[in-house]
């Protein structure tokens, strides 16, 4: 029954999920088991790249969930992603222990440089993995709860909501840039050594993180699918299409939106937490409003309102970014900018919508 609801009725989703699962199996095997001379060998670089894309896909999913289904455009989802990343980063920093350049048993290198005497209170507990992971979910979740509660209750919607979310992530970026905040300022957190005792420089650890990202993406997808196919999901869609009417029908519009927003923020945070150990650095630059807007473009390009569209979008736009910044850096912003315009003008349903249109034509 549940399988029917989550998967079988969703052919595009099944295809995309299938590809993700396939990737999760083949990539680590080709990376670990084959010698680097083999033509089927997948290099560490590619594993890292794909791992990053998987995290972005999960992030895109979280944006699509609120924008595509509830019509809430958040231009500050990068804030939750980055906060999640900082949570993981703090855990990884604590794992360095006395292996920092100054050999201090407890303080981070940047704290030694700032002449700090002891670890700030908010760094306590992050040496425990479970606690750090709890915080990865709780901190962005609570922020989204507080922010959403205030915003939805006063019926801040549409562009106003978009603008204040952008201000939120901008304010966080400025705050984290401050060295006194105790998060390493502009340099952020980096030079991680190990996670759960596994050396981050090991191939196998990275392959493990890759698989973990893929699993998270699949689970995240299924959870989102579960929500949007539920009764609540239908209410949410009706909020998107006619908010006042839904309210008059007696539904508590605010609480539906609020809980969906919180869930989406947590999903973004998980993506951030997986992203950090794979790229090896987290810094306030990730809060930049530009990043948050880019996420929206992944979703728009892939096709908003279909969950797998978000995944397709994240992969295709990021692949294009990697490709163009390698071969023709000058043109990348033209292409990204053009993509924004073209997608909004000509492809309101994104790539997925394009396929749908072809298929419908073909059927005729």
């Amino acid at each position, binding site marked *: 029954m549940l399988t029917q609801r989550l998967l079988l009725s969703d052919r595009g989703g099944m295809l995309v999920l299938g590809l993700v699962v396939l990737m999760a199996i083949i990539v680590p095997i080709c990376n670990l088991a084959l010698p680097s001379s083999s033509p089927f060998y997948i290099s560490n670089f590619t594993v890292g790249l794909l791992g990053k894309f998987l995290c972005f896909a999960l992030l895109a999913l979280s944006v699509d969930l609120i924008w595509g289904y509830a019509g809430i455009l958040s231009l500050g989802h990068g804030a939750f992603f980055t906060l999640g990343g900082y949570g993981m980063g703090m855990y990884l920093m604590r794992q360095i222990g006395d292996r920092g350049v100054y050999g201090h048993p407890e303080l981070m290198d940047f704290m030694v440089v700032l002449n700090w005497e002891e670890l700030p209170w908010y760094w306590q507990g992050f040496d425990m993995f479970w606690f750090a992971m709890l915080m990865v979910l709780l901190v962005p979740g609570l922020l989204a709860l507080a922010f959403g509660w205030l915003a939805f209750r006063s019926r801040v919607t549409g562009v106003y909501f978009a603008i204040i979310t952008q201000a939120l992530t901008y304010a966080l970026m400025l705050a984290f840039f401050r060295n006194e905040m105790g998060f390493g300022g502009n340099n952020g957190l980096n030079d991680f050594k190990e996670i759960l005792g596994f050396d981050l420089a090991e191939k196998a650890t990275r392959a493990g993180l890759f698989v973990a990202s893929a699993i998270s993406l699949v689970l995240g997808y299924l959870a989102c699918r579960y929500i949007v196919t539920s009764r609540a999901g239908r209410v949410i869609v009706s909020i998107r299409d006619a908010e006042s009417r839904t309210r008059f029908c007696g539904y508590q519009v605010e609480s539906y939106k609020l809980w969906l927003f919180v869930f989406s923020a947590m999903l973004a945070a998980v993506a951030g937490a997986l992203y950090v150990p794979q790229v090896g650095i987290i810094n306030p630059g990730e809060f930049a409003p530009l990043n948050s807007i880019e996420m929206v473009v992944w979703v728009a390009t892939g096709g908003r309102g279909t969950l797998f569209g978000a995944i397709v979008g994240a992969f295709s736009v990021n692949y294009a970014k990697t490709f163009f910044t390698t071969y023709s850096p000058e043109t990348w912003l033209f292409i990204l900018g053009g993509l924004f315009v073209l997608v909004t003008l000509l492809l309101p349903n994104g790539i997925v919508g394009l*396929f749908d249109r072809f298929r419908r034509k073909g059927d005729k």
Partner: protein
Amino acid sequence: MKLKNLVKKAGALGVACSMALGALSVQAEETIKVGVLHSLSGTMAISETTLKDTMLMLIEEQNKKGGLLGKKLEAVVVDPASNWPLFAERTRELLEQHHVNAIFGCWTSVSRKSVLPVIEELNGMLFYPVQYEGEESSRNVFYTGAAPNQQAIPAVDYLKDELGVERWVLAGTDYVYPRTTNRILEAYLKAAGVAEEDIMINYTPFGHSDWQNIVAEIKRFGSTGKKTAVVSTINGDANVPFYRELGNQGVSAEDIPVVAFSVGEEELSGIDTGPLVGHMAAWNYFMSEDTPENEAFIKTWHQFIGDEKRVTNDPMEAHYIGFNMWVKAVEKAGTTDTDKVIDAMVGVEVPNLTGGTSKMLPNHHITKPVLIGEIQDDGQFLTVSSTDELVPGDAWSNYLEGSKDLISDWTAPISCGNYNTKTKTCVGAQAEQ
């Protein structure tokens, strides 16, 4: 179903691409590859694009001289797009996909920090050409820019001894380089007998544009009768509004001189230099230095870039030195094997552009002259002071609590980046190895 077809096609395309890459790499066996890792897009492109061009020029010149070890050099340029995680990713790409022998790149400290774990893991070589805050030493990184003792401290000495400055404003952008430099300077000044209340420290965000308040405060701070100077570690874009405000509020270089560590010829070329005349900068190279090497370098640069108006600056010289040192070390080692070249690097001497000979030290920093110049209205510097001898770069500052006992020495028997001279041990992660 069309989707499946498309996926197949995409797959085929991917295979074709990778085959093309493979073909390239076969062909590339003949050359020695040099990675160039500078942002060509995004906010840092403004500074880093020039360094990419410098590298291409140096490589072209070397090839004209017959290459290296009988092979041609080949530049592999990638764009990390001013995105710090991308720096790490691109480094991995350079080392794993392109198998480059050395990487010349990075500008900001955070980009270097991002690259550091990857370059150490894959045992590559990075030449870092920009002045930085020190407090770092890696076996795989060669720091050809200035350490604080090669820029900040001599500049402060000049102000103190030559201009009789007694009151200090340490103004900077809030990131690690100004923070560390100012902390070093604060300790240094206090050790020299400057009182706490004669030092004012101020931090501003990146790209800060409203300087009214801060300049007014500097003016008040400088109005007590004691000679006051501003030591500026203000970064990039914030400088123009800062100097404009200084000029407009009537703070002239004669009253309160500003000595900057991040303002060079290239930055000046985008500024109306009128209000800046007489303010100072400390660097290891000025375009206005009158030496035959420099003249030749500027000429080659103008020919390469095809624009007589382009300026040269300190990080370009750092790449010039770093590249020539690498060439020499490879020749000395007779191979491009990383470990052998790293060992051969220490002790290599090449001429710099200011008439001296720079040497690679065991701590992977180099000896450099320290020049202090005053900004002239044509955007060039007039050297008003230069050290008699070259100053050796110091990885760990003697004025910081955490690092005063640390030294770096990558030659046997110490072979350690952060060696504690008191406990005679190598601290941190390297302790295990």
